[in-house]
């Protein structure tokens, strides 16, 4: 069984379902990328995996354990970390406090992890005393990812981490994500910079209208002309 196994998720915000039997799985240390048209339900699927949406059907298991009924906070304790698409830092708290908040659920000494995060994102160490709200878009994204890493998640979920960041920062972020994955952390992310993302993905999902349309390795999806034309912009 896969490390994360969200199978046959069905549900939505109101009466109409947004997700229709959507299945997402991620293995240990694997990078899985979700792509798809706007409004396909990618963010919704992420929320569903994280327990922020009431599901009408389907289940979510993590490391073999059924977590379908758990609240988001409890999922954090089970080792899931989530970086939302927007509003993903604490703007009036310093970078360091942002990271501390990431480690909120931990009762052990987290200075080591913080050092690791600083190693991963050196710019953050420089700006550790600055309020996160005063950082540029790309730096904020790094803080956001860093905060999620502080929980020492076993599964890191990122919703469009590169939206609005410059190419150089995007590359940097993807580089970091690969490094993170190499430490054995599973990554599930939504991306609209789909080609770049699929290049580093072990596995790719194409979501259309809340359902799985294509599932394959990143390479294979990139190579599929149909997928390229319809979803990756040629």
């Amino acid at each position, binding site marked *: 069984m896969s490390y994360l196994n969200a199978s046959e998720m069905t549900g939505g915000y109101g009466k109409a379902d947004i997700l229709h039997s959507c299945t997402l799985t991620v293995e240990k240390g694997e990078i899985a990328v979700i792509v798809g048209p706007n409004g396909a339900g990618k963010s919704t699927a992420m929320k569903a995996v994280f327990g922020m949406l009431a599901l009408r059907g389907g289940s979510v298991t993590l490391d073999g354990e059924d977590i379908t009924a758990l609240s988001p*906070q409890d999922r*954090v304790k089970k080792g899931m970390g989530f970086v939302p698409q927007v509003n993903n830092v*604490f703007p*009036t708290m310093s970078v360091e406090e942002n990271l501390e908040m990431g480690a909120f659920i931990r009762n052990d000494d987290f200075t080591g992890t913080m050092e690791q995060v600083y190693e991963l994102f050196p710019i953050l160490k420089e700006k550790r005393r600055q309020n996160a709200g005063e950082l540029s878009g790309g730096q904020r994204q790094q803080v956001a990812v860093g905060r999620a890493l502080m929980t020492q998640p076993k599964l890191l979920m990122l919703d469009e981490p590169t939206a609005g960041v410059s190419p150089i920062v995007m590359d940097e972020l993807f580089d970091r994500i690969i490094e993170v994955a190499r430490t054995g952390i599973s990554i599930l992310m939504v991306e609209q910079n789909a080609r770049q993302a699929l290049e580093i993905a072990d596995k790719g999902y194409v979501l259309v209208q809340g359902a799985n349309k294509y599932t394959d390795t990143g390479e294979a999806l990139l190579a599929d002309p149909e997928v390229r034309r319809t979803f990756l912009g040629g």
Partner: protein
Amino acid sequence: MDLINALVAITNYVIIPATAYGAQLALGALGVTLIYSILRFSNFAHGDTMAFGTGIVILITWGFQAMGISLGPLPTALLALPFGIAITAALMLGTDKVVYQYYRKVRAAPVVMVMVSVGVMFVMNALTRFLIGVDQINFDDGARFVINARQWREMTGLSEPLTLRSTQVITVVTAIITVAALFWFLGKTRTGKSMRAFSDNEDLALLSGIDPNRVVAVTWIITGALATIAGTLYGLDKSFKAFTYFQLLLPIFASAIVGGIGNPVGAIAGGFVISFSEVGLTYAWKKVVTYLIPNWQPDGLVQLLSTDYKYAVSFTILILVLIFKPTGLFKGKIV
């Protein structure tokens, strides 16, 4: 020229009362600001919470007095305060469970929360009166003065009196301790930081594993404590009357906003700005002028504004601050 008497007059009639009043407003404004920044709504029930808390303190004080327990020169109410805080905090938590929790869950707009708090205000209003009635109650039983007018005159031989009430001293001292404790708590402790995180970005706090229920509970407990302390100090210094506490809501809000709502430092500064402007701008300078310029007997009161418009003064200041420095003296946060 009689500089000393002039100074004494100003101290006695402006500086001392305004400082004590300012400290009381500041404590009230802190409660309002805390709710605003963490739970994101203007809590119109705060005045009545203060009344309720004070009512409880009074009942317990009476109990102690009946049992013959006292604090010597200090008012017995100080002894009753912790119990009052506990009960008020419990009521706050209960209110949250029964009322506010639902609106957080459905993510109601702030103005809905404001209206909800108006509803709570109505209920608390009634509750307080059921509890302790509508009468004016004096429950200050300690030594009344640190220095009274007669002692002062004997001591200094000056014609101007100067008095310092013990409640004024207690008020300021308690206010300083409370504020310091609050700052330490918010800035340094884990729970305090998690509260700031929650106030910054509620969703993200959730994603960091911060338990919103805990944050909310702690917020209400602190608010209950602040309200009870502010209300008790106020009641000790003046006297308790349920209706007055509702009226206090306006200057408290004015303080919080002038200072920059959502900002604790601002709340404190705002309290003093409001109290000093109320007392200072309407002060009749006649006496001081006659001390300073002995040969001039002004026929008027040498008063900038009559006390009729006292409340207009504090609100005019409020409006001016809002227009020229819209986030308040200290940058507040707006949701």
